């Protein structure tokens, strides 16, 4: 183990140590001590930590204690530790199985990660979520992409797409659009991953107004000067009330009250002015007072 690895491990250990005794209110004293002892093992040589962690996993211990042993295994870079993690990921039940899966993600072992696809295919929704989390932790975008492409139901597809968004997997999400078409989850993922180009592409495509409106609204999540200018432009050029409203929602999300005020000042109809004023109020914008003051001055 090199020096940097040891530093990281010891730092992680000290961070973990904050959780050992302190956050175990519902755990017995004996288990508290075991958990603290396991956490201390993070700074032990693998050949000394591994047998102790394995012993805990083989013993009649609570899931909380065993989960901490699984974490220790995830920090030991040996075939034996990986074999135990994979065994628990395949054969354990409930939270212990899910934790073993997540720990494979933390370990980042490529062979063990590859084996998770089989566990995903045969697992329940909790297991499938844990596999996605493991891939998220390990940064394995391709594995999540494969899950999305091969999903045979909407829930699994959306979970995978959401994970890709959190991973910032722009290339994979663009590829997915080519294969599956635009969907609400894909638009959300573009926004979460910060893929402005893809989002603008959908926002400018009026072949599906519902998806177009979703994309316009989602632009607000990315925010920024370019997005704000686009939203004002989209509002002005909107061919339908839905698109106009989506642009306003986008400005609401991005907090662009200056744009809404600009639109208010250029609005012609009282109904439009009223709607824009309502948005400014919802945004808790000081611009409302500019409008009130101007109205009072005009009245005088």
């Amino acid at each position: 183990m090199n020096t940097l690895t040891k530093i990281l491990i010891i730092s992680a250990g000290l961070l973990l140590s904050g959780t050992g005794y302190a956050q175990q209110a519902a755990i017995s004293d004996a288990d508290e001590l075991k958990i603290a002892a396991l956490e201390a093992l993070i700074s032990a040589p693998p050949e000394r930590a591994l047998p102790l962690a394995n012993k805990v996993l083989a013993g009649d211990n609570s899931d909380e204690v065993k989960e901490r042993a699984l974490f220790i295994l995830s920090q030991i870079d040996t075939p034996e530790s990986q074999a135990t993690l994979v065994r628990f990921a395949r054969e354990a039940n409930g939270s212990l199985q899910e934790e073993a899966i997540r720990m494979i993600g933390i370990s980042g072992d490529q062979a063990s990660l590859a084996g998770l696809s089989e566990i995903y295919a045969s697992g329940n929704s909790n297991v499938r979520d844990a596999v996605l989390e493991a891939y998220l932790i390990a940064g394995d975008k391709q594995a999540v992409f494969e899950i999305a492409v091969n999903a045979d139901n909407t829930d699994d597809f959306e979970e995978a797409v959401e994970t890709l968004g959190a991973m910032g997997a722009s290339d994979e999400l663009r590829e997915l659009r080519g294969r599956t078409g635009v969907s609400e989850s894909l638009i959300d993922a573009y926004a979460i991953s910060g893929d402005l180009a893809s989002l603008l592409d959908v926002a400018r495509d009026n072949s599906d107004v519902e998806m177009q409106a979703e994309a316009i609204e989602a632009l607000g999540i990315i925010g920024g000067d370019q997005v704000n200018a686009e939203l004002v432009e989209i509002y002005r050029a909107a061919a339908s009330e839905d698109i106009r409203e989506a642009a306003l929602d986008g400005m609401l999300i991005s907090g662009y009250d200056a744009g809404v005020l600009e639109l208010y000042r250029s609005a012609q109809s009282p109904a439009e002015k009223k709607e824009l004023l309502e948005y400014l109020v919802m945004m808790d914008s000081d611009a409302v007072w500019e409008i009130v003051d101007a109205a009072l001055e005009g009245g005088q």
Partner: protein
Amino acid sequence: MRAARAAALAACVVFAAICSPTHAELLAGSDGWHSWQTDEAGAITDMCCFTRQRGAGSRAVCYLDETRLVFSSGDDCAASPGRAQYYVLVEDGKPREIRVLSEACPVETGGQITDHGIVPAAENLAWFRRVIEDRTVSNDVREEALFALVLSESNLAFDYLDRILSANVPAGR
């Protein structure tokens, strides 16, 4: 002859009291930093303080009073085989900070360090057990004690950890 034996026995008792402080004596010791060494087969502590500048790391003096020390290990901190050096800050008669370092690691503190010399490994473990199992000691310190035992790589320490982790494990599992 009898008087000589009595004198020798008394000298041994005095010597043992000086060289082998009990955990109670250490815990009840005066406030400030205390230090002692163990000499035990299996122990191999090369932990030291460490500083990183421009991505490169180098050994540094350990300022014991600092709350955020960066520890590392490396050849330049290698200690004599079997040696581990412990530092304990006592406040109000209770341990507040525990460090285990290489005996080759330079340390500094704003105050005095009371050196207790070499403590037998079993005595050392008994002291750590007392801290770890004492619920009046803060959890942070108890966890530091566990980390110190692990970092010492002492066989006795790992036997103790094994006993903690094996508690209530049914035979044959």
